[in-house]
């Protein structure tokens, strides 16, 4: 079994599992209570919040809002900021559906939505974004790195430019895909809102966070008992939260080693692949994307067929996004990069991660080369 779908989700890190264990057993309190049982949970929750704030370089722990995952964090950021500020959103064509569908929702309720295109490498042009921002704009949302291609966006430059031109406009970045391999801090990026999802960096599923710069107003999208300073109601998932923060720490601590190891595997993978299959196309230049992503097009070999054949030999990879039924959908990300729908159906993503063993890049390339040979 060779798991090369870390961009979809990652195995849990032992640090996360260990941190969660007590909260799946004896420590069960509701952090909102007043008694000792509740206090134990509350203390763990606030300790986790402080550590998360520290890792992200937040000025205050209360700038961290725990959510039920990355999608919810993106919804709270885009919809919450637009509703609170009374404006619309400017975003990019390659954003995750969590952002694009939030923007579509804003359109349905009469807000102004503008979707900026990307170049052939999948990058937005900062000036294009600035040109789309006007008095009707409440929030600009551009992801730190793309979940399909791994293409990194110039978020820091963008945040500086937006804040310079339009000081009232809130800047959000979805850093869900980037965090595992990039040094993500709100100081460096200069953003007002930032989303993370635990399961992309070795934490559990169903938990995420939104960094909310002090002073930024958000209209909640989940209404209820007023937890998380009213920004996200519902009893906190304490086990998930402590697991996520333990995974954040492990990811941050091991990041340099991760980057060099994963990059080496990926580069071997790509060089073997391009060597053996001359017409293979690697989408996006390697210095423009995350170290763990390899997104390739193999002419004449449909992604669906290749992925099933690889699955039969125990290699797990993926293509674009899957619909509700599990069928592979033509990817909006590739379409935005100018890749035709027929070519897009021949694109496959291999993503490496913290459990990727040494030699995996070469093994994976061997499996792909053999399979492609059989299919051609």
């Amino acid at each position, binding site marked *: 079994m060779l798991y090369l779908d870390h961009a979809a989700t990652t195995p849990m890190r032992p640090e996360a599992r260990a941190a969660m264990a007590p909260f799946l057993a004896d420590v069960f309190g509701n952090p909102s209570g007043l008694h000792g049982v509740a206090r134990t949970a509350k203390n763990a929750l606030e300790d986790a919040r402080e550590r998360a704030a520290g890792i992200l370089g937040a000025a205050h722990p209360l700038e961290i809002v725990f959510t039920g995952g990355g999608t919810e964090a993106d919804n709270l950021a885009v919809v919450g900021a637009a509703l609170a500020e009374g404006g619309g959103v400017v975003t990019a064509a390659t954003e995750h559906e969590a952002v694009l569908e939030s923007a579509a929702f804003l359109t349905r309720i009469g807000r102004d939505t503008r979707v900026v295109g990307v170049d052939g490498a999948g990058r937005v042009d900062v000036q294009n974004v600035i040109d789309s921002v006007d008095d009707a704009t409440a929030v600009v949302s551009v992801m730190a790195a793309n979940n399909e291609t791994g293409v990194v966006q110039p978020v820091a430059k963008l945040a500086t430019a937006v804040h310079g031109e339009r000081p009232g406009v809130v800047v959000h970045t979805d850093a869900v895909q980037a965090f595992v391999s990039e040094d993500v801090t709100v100081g460096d990026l200069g953003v007002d809102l930032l989303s993370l999802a635990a399961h992309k960096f070795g934490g559990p599923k169903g938990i995420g966070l939104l960094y909310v710069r002090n002073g930024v107003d958000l209209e909640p999208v989940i209404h209820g008992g007023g937890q998380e300073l009213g920004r996200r109601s519902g009893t906190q998932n304490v086990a998930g939260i402590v697991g996520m923060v333990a995974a954040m720490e492990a990811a941050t601590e091991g990041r340099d080693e991760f980057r060099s190891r994963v990059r080496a595997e990926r580069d071997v993978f790509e060089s073997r692949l391009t060597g053996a299959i001359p017409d293979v196309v690697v989408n996006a230049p390697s210095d423009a994307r995350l170290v763990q992503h390899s997104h390739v097009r193999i002419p004449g070999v449909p992604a*669906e*067929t290749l992925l*099933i*054949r690889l*699955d*039969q030999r125990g290699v797990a990879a993926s293509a674009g996004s899957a*619909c*509700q*039924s*599990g*069928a*592979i*959908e033509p990817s909006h990300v590739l379409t935005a990069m100018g890749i035709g729908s027929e070519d897009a159906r021949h694109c496959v993503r291999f993503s490496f991660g913290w459990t990727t063993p040494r030699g995996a890049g070469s093994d994976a390339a061997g499996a792909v080369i053999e399979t492609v040979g059989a*299919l051609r």
Partner: protein
Amino acid sequence: MRALVAMSGGVDSSVAAALMLDQGYDVVGVTLKQWEGPGGALPTAGCCTVGDAEDARRVAAQLDVPYYVLDYTAEFREAVVDHFGAEYLAGRTPNPCIECNRNVRFTALLERTAALGCDVLVTGHHARIAYEDRRWKLLRAVDTTKDQSYVLHMLTAAQLPLIRMPVGEMTKAEVRRRAEVLGLRTASKPDSQDLCFVGRRDYRAFLREQFPESDAPGPIVDLDGNVVGSHDGTAGFTIGQRRGLGLAMGEPRYVVDIAAAERTVTVGRRDDLAVGTCTVGAVSFVTGSFPEDPSVAIKVRYRAEPLMGSVVADEDGVVVRFATPQVGVAPGQAAVFYAGDEVLGGGTIEATFAASAALALEGAGG
């Protein structure tokens, strides 16, 4: 050996997958995504729904075999749905199951079977494929009440060795019993009755929505040309149809002709429906060649018994003559030729000639 099983989420293909495992095959289950609702979602009503794919996925999990959903929406739209609309707009009565088998299931998917690492393609059709008398044959199902060989007539001798239809050897009751014994969740799921892409609603509403040009009102006339009523669009009608004509004429009237170009529907008495001869296009023979004996049994609708007649090729193409006049012979439907239980081949009914006219022609000619 590995079998690619096309699983619809119904009981037949569920049991087909189980039977292939029994035969020692490794099984790969797939559901074809053929049609989608708004935003690319699977439809929620009718066949091919999210629920059906989920049933197929759960059965595959129970059988412990890998399962995938394959996207055939583009192929299906073009070969089946567009064809369905175009045929109705031309005043014909299409059979989309046949077009799907012809252009999607037994071409696109069959051709891909090897690429998906599989040796045979398996479906849950009630029909039999057998190697007898040193050749491959397509035969009617053991359960004649469920026989689906009519919609499989386009298969070729070269394709048959690559296809398995194991439930064709069983009665429907046996299939359900087998599913029950295996504890499959589809054991008592009702048979689908609907066109998969139309669902439970009226197909006329589907036509209006997908092919707005079908909304073209015109007259209903009798055989003498008298206007006796009006209609909202010829696409809503089928040869032999009696209901929904909105006519009060004392005795029942049936649709006997649909002239789409003139937007005219002609009605007549039941006797006027009697067809003696029809021409057939897109003819293919499972056996690989035209039958030596022109005397064959002919089935002209999915739910009709094969009746005797003859099939010959002349300068007008392939011509079918019925030994006794047939009612409900509709252009666009298939004429399928049988010798006993064996499917010899078939094609698409192009034009029909009234029994009396055919006799007159024959009289004049001979």
